[in-house]
């Protein structure tokens, strides 16, 4: 059973929820886009539906809400180490199915890879409830269907936004109580996008051999990619970070250790002492990223890392297309098996 509520009623409930929850949604920030006079859609706290941008894809993913770009791990003084606290407030995020699936990838790295869980990720992640935005149709660059990123049932509330009402499928009792009051009960099955304009065949992991790594499809990217790392920062599933220490004052007695997002496309990602580096060519880095997204992660966890949100394509200043790149890998793999 679903509920149909007016926009006004929906906003009213959001308002009630804002006592206990910080609510995030995709928001349009005017004139902050990549080019002059363009806008930027990113995740910000919102207080009502009118503040949300639902007709465009967000440039940045919602991952920074639970995995901040820069996060202090601890402060220290001469004889004391202190871990900064996070607000008690719980968190609601309005996001699309691909991003919910993306969060599952982040969960996998931070909570399941290795014997220890990530303290900082976990304490924010536990506060979060997902309000899924039902996609009417994908955007131009989406390829979520190819990546199996189009469907999920990991939501507290699924919202289908219509012009003058919202239809809600609610799985979380807390929200059912709030939204159902005075709402009209309707029949509605949660709808997912079943087809994208961009389709790509993902090569089966057991077919990806050394030849793919050594193939010269990657040299193209050595020339095209400028190593800016935008594809990584916009990606919902990129999880890498680097430690950074900072001290205040001259005597090194006070300071902080923090982590900042890292990008495998940017210089220094694999640089060790003595400037020994493992992937100096941009093409090798593209290969590393691609394999992580559509091969390596799957070998460890049984599903692909990439969810097909298409953001890496949207943000690349060199118009490098990730699905095209996957296609090239697939061609090599198919070529190999035809021999």
């Amino acid at each position, binding site marked *: 059973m679903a509920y149909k509520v007016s926009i006004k009623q929906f906003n009213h409930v959001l308002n009630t929820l804002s006592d206990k929850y910080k609510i995030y949604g995709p928001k349009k920030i005017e004139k902050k886009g990549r080019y002059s006079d363009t806008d930027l859609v990113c995740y910000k706290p919102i207080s009502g539906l009118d503040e949300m941008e639902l007709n465009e894809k967000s440039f940045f993913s919602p991952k920074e809400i639970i995995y901040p770009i820069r996060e202090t791990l*601890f402060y220290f003084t001469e004889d004391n*180490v202190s871990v900064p606290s996070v607000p008690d407030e719980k968190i609601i995020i309005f996001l699309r199915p691909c991003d919910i699936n993306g969060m599952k990838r982040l969960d996998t790295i931070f909570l399941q890879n*290795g014997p220890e869980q990530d303290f900082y990720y976990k304490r924010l992640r536990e506060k979060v409830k997902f309000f899924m935005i039902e996609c009417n149709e994908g955007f131009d660059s989406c390829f979520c269907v190819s990546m199996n990123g189009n469907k999920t049932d990991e939501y507290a509330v699924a919202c289908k936004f219509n012009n003058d009402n919202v239809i809600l499928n609610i799985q979380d009792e807390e929200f059912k109580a709030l939204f159902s009051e005075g709402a009209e009960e309707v029949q509605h099955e949660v709808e997912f996008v079943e087809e994208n304009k961009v389709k790509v065949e993902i090569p089966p992991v057991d077919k990806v051999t050394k030849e793919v790594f050594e193939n010269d499809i990657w040299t193209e990217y050595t020339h095209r990619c400028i190593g800016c790392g935008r594809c990584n920062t916009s990606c919902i599933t990129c999880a890498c970070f680097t430690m950074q220490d900072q001290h205040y004052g001259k005597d090194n007695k006070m300071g902080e250790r923090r982590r900042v997002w890292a990008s495998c496309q940017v210089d220094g990602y694999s640089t060790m002492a003595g400037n020994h580096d493992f992937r100096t060519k941009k093409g090798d880095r593209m290969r590393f990223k691609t394999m992580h997204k559509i091969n390596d992660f799957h070998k460890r966890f049984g599903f692909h890392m990439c969810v097909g949100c298409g953001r890496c394509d949207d943000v690349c200043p060199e118009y490098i297309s990730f699905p095209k790149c996957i296609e090239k890998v697939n061609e090599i793999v198919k070529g190999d098996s035809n021999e």
Partner: protein
Amino acid sequence: MNNPYLPRPIKIIDRWEESGIDHTFRVENDMNLIGGQFLQLSIPGVGEAPISISDFTDKYLDMTIRKVGKLTDGIFDLQAGDKIFVRGPYGNGFNLDQYKGKNLVIVAGGTGLAPVKNVVNYFYNNMDLVKSFTLIVGFKTPNDILFRDEIKKWSEKINVVLTVDSADESWTGETGLVTKHIAVCDMKDLDNTEVIVVGPPIMMKFATIEFVKRGLAEEKIWVSFERKMSCGIGKCGHCKIDETYVCLEGPVFNYVKAKELID
């Protein structure tokens, strides 16, 4: 909730020079360790880096550190009595049982001797546990030689080949790359031989090839990798090669696996 990123302070008991830029730091130890594991060593406000445990007892552990940058410069300012911060131990380390009853050959290049030093000492003290033991260590020049006194001590029981890449007339020992010495090393009973190779990537590459050329099965060769690491616990991504995380599944790898890893 356990916070794996919080380092704990431990006291430096002693430090001494190995070569001009390599010093060994001895610190208090309260951990259960395996040779070949590493710690994330840090000075808050300066930096954090993975450093191998070169040797240990249940009272202390040693780390041999090369002064190369921000953190290691800071560590070189510390003295006995000062505190340093650690978290770990991390990584798999060497499985000693693997080498028991075997002809053990260890080849180490430069600072690569540090991560295997505990293994060397273990079998030096328990020679009855191996059939034979050969240690081939190479350094760039005589001035780069680490653990000089210990190498001399080991020579009493172990078949030690100490070589330098280049030397002046005053050097009376062996010269040439470790690969040259692998080529002539006495290896009869290949079925019962296990080899450990640790050193700079290029040295490991050619040393392992040399053993394979000599007819040793790949699964009898073990190597230890170094990669950039920010976390040591499988989150930061820096150490990843293909689907393998060096901080989790390594740094010690069997060559059968290691040779398939493409950075």
